[in-house]
């Protein structure tokens, strides 16, 4: 009869031998996972530390938001004094506008928001602010005082509905008017307002707006001004270094960013630094 005992022993040895490569692969992947998780954890801690200044900014921005919303409303009043009617008129014009346009433009703005989200969380709400306030800055605050109490209600409504489908339609005519207006006009209005109250959120907004328009010198200047007022705003440092890169001052951009990272440990700044160094951001 067959000596199964001996055969079993040989089989066991064979099995152990054949598992060696798998075991090494498993072991090394475990090591990699541990290293990666440690690395990720350390990143999280950094994020938490950078969050606190942002919260401050957020408050300021919210204040600005309310103000801009007010101007938004007053603008409507100025053009067609009874506000309710104005909105109704806008609604009817919207129905004539092909719906696809509304959807496309909304989709674009969402995409942009997402992209900026990845870069840095603080940029996200700055963008939001941009959307809601952009077209309405050109009017001066003189009108603002006229009928504040009346307008506030409507403003609140508008704000809540901003992200729902129905408001897409409502907002559409306003967006069309934005495109017709000169962006420089918008900025000028905000500059005036900024000169009055020196709010860093406004100067940051201006910097970003100039950056978007490709006027990198002005963008850089306004970002610098913002940094002087409040040196803890990630987004402002990011705009200033991005502008530097666009102005072919890559080395200076890297230096500035490194200095800022040393002080703030900002992860969005780190990401940008990596992108600049690797040439991904040009």
């Amino acid at each position, binding site marked *: *009869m*067959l000596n*199964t005992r001996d*055969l*079993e022993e*040989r*089989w066991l040895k064979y099995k152990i031998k054949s598992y060696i490569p798998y075991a090494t692969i498993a072991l090394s992947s475990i090591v990699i996972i541990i290293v990666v998780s440690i690395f990720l954890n350390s990143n999280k801690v950094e994020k938490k530390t950078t969050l606190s200044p942002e919260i401050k900014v957020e408050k300021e921005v919210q204040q600005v938001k309310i103000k801009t919303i007010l101007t938004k409303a007053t603008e409507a009043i100025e053009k067609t004094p009874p506000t309710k009617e104005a909105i109704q008129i806008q609604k009817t014009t919207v129905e004539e506008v092909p719906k696809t346009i509304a959807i496309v433009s909304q989709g674009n703005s969402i995409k942009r928001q997402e992209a900026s989200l990845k870069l840095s969380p603080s940029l996200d709400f700055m963008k939001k602010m941009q959307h809601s306030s952009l077209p309405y800055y050109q009017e001066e605050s003189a009108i603002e005082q006229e009928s504040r109490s009346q307008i506030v209600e409507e403003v609140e409504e508008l704000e809540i509905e901003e992200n729902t489908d129905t408001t897409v339609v409502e907002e559409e005519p306003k967006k069309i008017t934005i495109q017709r207006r000169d962006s420089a006009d918008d900025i000028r209005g905000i500059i005036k307002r900024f000169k009055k109250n020196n709010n860093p959120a406004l100067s940051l907004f201006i910097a970003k707006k100039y950056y978007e328009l490709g006027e990198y010198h002005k963008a850089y200047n306004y970002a610098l001004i913002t940094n002087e007022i409040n040196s803890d705003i990630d987004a402002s440092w990011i705009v200033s270094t991005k502008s530097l890169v666009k102005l072919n001052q890559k080395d200076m951009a890297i230096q500035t960013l490194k200095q800022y990272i040393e002080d703030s440990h900002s992860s969005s700044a780190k990401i940008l630094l990596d992108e600049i160094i690797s040439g991904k951001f040009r």
Partner: protein
Amino acid sequence: MSSSIYINSKNVFLDTVNSKDYIQLDRVSTIYQALKDSIKKPLKMILLYGKPGTGKSMFLTKLYHDLSSSQIVHIYQTPILDESEFYKILAQDIFSTKYSGELNFTQFMKIVANSDISSIPVVLLDEAQLYSDALMEKIRLISDTRTIKFVITLHKTEKEDLIAKEHFQTRIWETIELENASNAELKIYIQKKLMKANCFDSANMFTTKSVNKIFKLTNGNYRDTNKLLYALFDIYSAYDTNHQLSSVGTTHVSNKLIEMSAIHTGLINA
């Protein structure tokens, strides 16, 4: 299961060539049909080749068995290496002419020429790689007379390539290659083989998964598969007598035992 079933199953995989054990496999049966057809063509000689253990001898034996009822057919499973001996045996078997002394090619050709056999006899030569080149050339010349039809099998070895060049790549040769079984064919082969011997329970143990495992080890070679399964059932019957069967189960073939058999037969180096 009683222990005898494992012993019966084991014996199914003894490496023997017997036409009654022949298993009809789709690919093989089409080749078989082609072969039977070409036997009717007078001029052609048929060369059956393939790697060792692909079933050439089995094929030839089956052919012999099937043809013998309808025509004159002779099979030579072990080669007759001496030339004179070769002619003498053929003269006796085909033409019933007994020769006591030496018989050379010219004398044999005379016998062939004087043949009064109405139908062409078929001669099946297995293991033809063992014949000398000179004798192979004579066989071709005999074949040219159209009085004897030859079916020849040979191993596909490096040496065989040379033989193939010299002898078989002329128009008179019809060559047929036999190959290893595919995954699916191997499963049919194993199961049919066991069922022929009434080992139904054993046949059911071979799931697609375990056949795949066997295929990986034997590459579908019939002889290697036979060896492996012989060892496998040997181990099963040993486990049975040692009351160890519960540790490996009997519903399907244990991978462990397949690997043990592979180690035992040398398919796995351990």
